[in-house]
C-alpha cells in the first residue's frame, strides 16, 4: 500500500505547477519528524523488554530437557527439569479457547456489521462487548468457578480454564473483526448482490476474505492475550508440576502459571524458570503469528 505514495512531491511538481509553499513543506517536515520520532521512542521500550526476556531466558531454553521434561519431583533450588507440561497446557488451553471463541466472535461481529443495523439487540450487543473488554481475568475466572464448579458441580479442569479464557478472547475478536468488516467497501457487497449471490455467501466469500488479514491480526492479539493469562488457570485448573494430557480432569500447568508458581521460589533456579517460561511463551506465540501470516496470504483475495 505504502508503495503507491512513495514520493508525492515528485508527482506534484511538474514544471507547469507552482512549487509547494514553504509553510506546507514545514508542516510536512514536522509531521514526518513526529512520525519517525514516535516510532523511535516506541522502539526503545519494545526492544528493551524483548532484550530483557531474551537475555535472561534464552540460555534456559537451549537445554534440550526444557522442551521434553516436566518439573515433576524437583526441589525449588534444584536446576534442571523442563516446561513440557506447561507448554502442553498453554497450547491446549489456548487452542480449545480459540476454537470456541473465534467462530462466536466473528459471528457476533458479522451480526453487528451486516445484520444488526440499529436494532435494539445490536445496541445491546455492542454495549455488552464493550463491558466485556474491561473484565479483569480474575473476575472472569471467579464467574466460571461459580457456574461450572459451584453450580454445576463439575470438577476443575483445563476445559474450565478455556471457558474462562473465552470470556477474555471474544471481546477482542469482536472489536477488531467489527472494525475490519466495517471498512470493507459497500460497493463490493453490492456488486456481489447484483450477481444474484445470496447474502450469506457474499459475506463468506467476499466480505470475510477481504477483511481476512485484519481479522487474523485480531485473533492473534486475542490469542496472545489469553495464552498469557494467569488467574483463570490458577483458579480453575491449578498448577501441576507433572504432565497431564487430560483436558477434562485434573490440574494442568500453563506457562504463565508456571511463572507465578516460581515466584514463590527465591532461588536462582526459580528465576531461570520464570524467564525461560517467558521466552518460551513468546516463541510459541511468534510461531502462531507466522502461521497466521501464512494462512492470510494463502486465503487473501488475489489482487494481481
Amino acid at each position, binding site marked *: 500500500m505504502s508503495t503507491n505514495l512513495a514520493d508525492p512531491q515528485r508527482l506534484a511538481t511538474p514544471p507547469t505547477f507552482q512549487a509547494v509553499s514553504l509553510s506546507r513543506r514545514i508542516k510536512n517536515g514536522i509531521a514526518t519528524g513526529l512520525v519517525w520520532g514516535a516510532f523511535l521512542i516506541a522502539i526503545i521500550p519494545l526492544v528493551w523488554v524483548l532484550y530483557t526476556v531474551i537475555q535472561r531466558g534464552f540460555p534456559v531454553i537451549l537445554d534440550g530437557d526444557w522442551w521434553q521434561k516436566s518439573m515433576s519431583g524437583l526441589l525449588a533450588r534444584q536446576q534442571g527439569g523442563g516446561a513440557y507440561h506447561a507448554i502442553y497446557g498453554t497450547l491446549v488451553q489456548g487452542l480449545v479457547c480459540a476454537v470456541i471463541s473465534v467462530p462466536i466472535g466473528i459471528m457476533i461481529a458479522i451480526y453487528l456489521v451486516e445484520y444488526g443495523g440499529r436494532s435494539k439487540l445490536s445496541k445491546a450487543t455492542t454495549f455488552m462487548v464493550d463491558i466485556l473488554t474491561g473484565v479483569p481475568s480474575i473476575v472472569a475466572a471467579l464467574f466460571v468457578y461459580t457456574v461450572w464448579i459451584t453450580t454445576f458441580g463439575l470438577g476443575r479442569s483445563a476445559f474450565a480454564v478455556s471457558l474462562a479464557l473465552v470470556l477474555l478472547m471474544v471481546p477482542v475478536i469482536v472489536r477488531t473483526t467489527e472494525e475490519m468488516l466495517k471498512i470493507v467497501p459497500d460497493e463490493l457487497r453490492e456488486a456481489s448482490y447484483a450477481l444474484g449471490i445470496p447474502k450469506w455467501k457474499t459475506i463468506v466469500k467476499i466480505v470475510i476474505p477481504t477483511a481476512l488479514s485484519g481479522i487474523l491480526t485480531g485473533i492473534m492479539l486475542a490469542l496472545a492475550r489469553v495464552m498469557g493469562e494467569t488467574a483463570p488457570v490458577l483458579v480453575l485448573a491449578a498448577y501441576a*508440576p507433572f504432565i497431564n494430557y487430560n483436558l477434562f480432569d485434573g490440574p494442568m500447568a500453563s506457562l504463565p502459571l508456571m511463572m507465578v508458581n516460581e515466584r514463590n521460589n527465591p532461588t536462582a533456579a526459580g528465576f531461570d524458570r520464570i524467564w525461560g517460561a517467558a521466552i518460551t511463551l513468546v516463541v510459541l506465540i511468534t510461531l502462531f503469528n*507466522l502461521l497466521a501470516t501464512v494462512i492470510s496470504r494463502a486465503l487473501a483475495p488475489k489482487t494481481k
Partner: protein
Amino acid sequence: MKIQRHGAVLGLVAASALLLGACGSDNNAPTGGTNTSSNAASVPVECGGKTKLNAEGSSAQKNAVDAFVQAYQAACPGVDLAYNPSGSGAGVKNFNAGQVDFGGSDSALKEGAETEAAAKRCQTNPAWNLPLVFGPVAVGYKVSGVDNLVLDAKTTAAIFSGAVKKWNDPAIKALNGSATLPDKDISVIYRSDESGTTDNFQKYLKVAGGWTKGDGKQFKGGVGEGKEKSAGVAQAVGSIDGAITYVEWSFAQDNKLSIAKIDSGAGAVELTAESAGKAIDGAKIKGEGNNLVLDLDSIYGSKAAGAYPLLLATYEIVCSKGYDADTAKAVKAFLTVAATTGQAQLADAGYVPLPKAFQDKLLTAVKAIA
C-alpha cells in the same frame, strides 16, 4: 509473499510439532549417584492407591511440599502430587468443595461454617488440621553498617506501627548497646497481598509485643509501603538502605537480607533451625485427639532461652475418614513420607524440621486416617 519464507515458517512449525509430539517425560530423577531414599528412616511406607494426588493452599509451604514430593517419589515410584500454591483461602475452599485431596492452610479451619463444610466434604467425618510445616518468619532489614541488630517484640511492634521512625531511636539503641546506629529513617515494607505471613506476624506482635493495630491477613500497621508477595518485599528491602520487613526465612536468605535477632526476655536469639525447633518443642496443642490444632500463643509467648518464637505453622487439612480407599492410601503414604524422610531436605529450603516428639504425634494421626 516469498516462497522461501513460507518454507521456513512451515519448517519451524513442523519442528516444534515434532518436539512436542516426541512425548514429554516426568522423569527428573538424577541418573545414578545420591538419592534421598538412601538415608531413609526406618518408618515403613505403604505405597499404593491413587498415583496422582491433588493439593492446594498456602504458598508459604510450597517449597517444603516440593521436598516432600521428591521424597515421596523416592519411596513410592510412579507417584506424583500437584500442589497449587494459590493461597490458604483457596486451599480451604477447594478442600471443602472436594476439588483437592487435602488442603494447605496457614490457619486451622475456623469453627463453624468452615468445619461444617469440611465435615460435609468428608462424608460427615471431621477434618483434621495437621501442622506439618513450620517456617520461621525473619525480620529482615538492610541498613549499611548494621548487621547484628537485636529486636524484641515490643520494639518490633513500635517500628511496624510507626511509633519508632529512626534507626537510632533510643528504644532500638537500648537493645543494641555497642552497635552504631545511623540517623536514618526506617522504611517499613509490608505485604500488599493478603497473606498468612502478615497474619501470623501481627498475631505474634499482639501476643508478645502489645500490638494494638489488630491482626488478619491485611497489614494494619498504618505505616510503610506494600509490595506484592514474599519475592516483592524481599527484593524491595534489598534495594533501599534503611528498610525492614517480615518475610519467610528462605526469601531473606536468598535476597541476602540481614536478619534481626529476637530477644524474648532471655537474651538475643539468632534465627537457626535449632532455635526455631526449640520453639516448636514448647508448643501446646489445643485441638482434640488427632486434630492437632496448635495453641499459637504458646509459641509466640515463649520466653524459653534459645527459642526463636516467630514461626509460621502451616497445616495440612485432611479428612479423618471419608476418603475412598485409593485416595486414603495415597494420602497416608504421602503424609507418612512427609513427616519422616521428607524432613531431611527442609532445612535447606528455609524450614524447620519437626522435633521428634511432634513427629510422633503427627504419625499417630496420619495412621488413624481411614
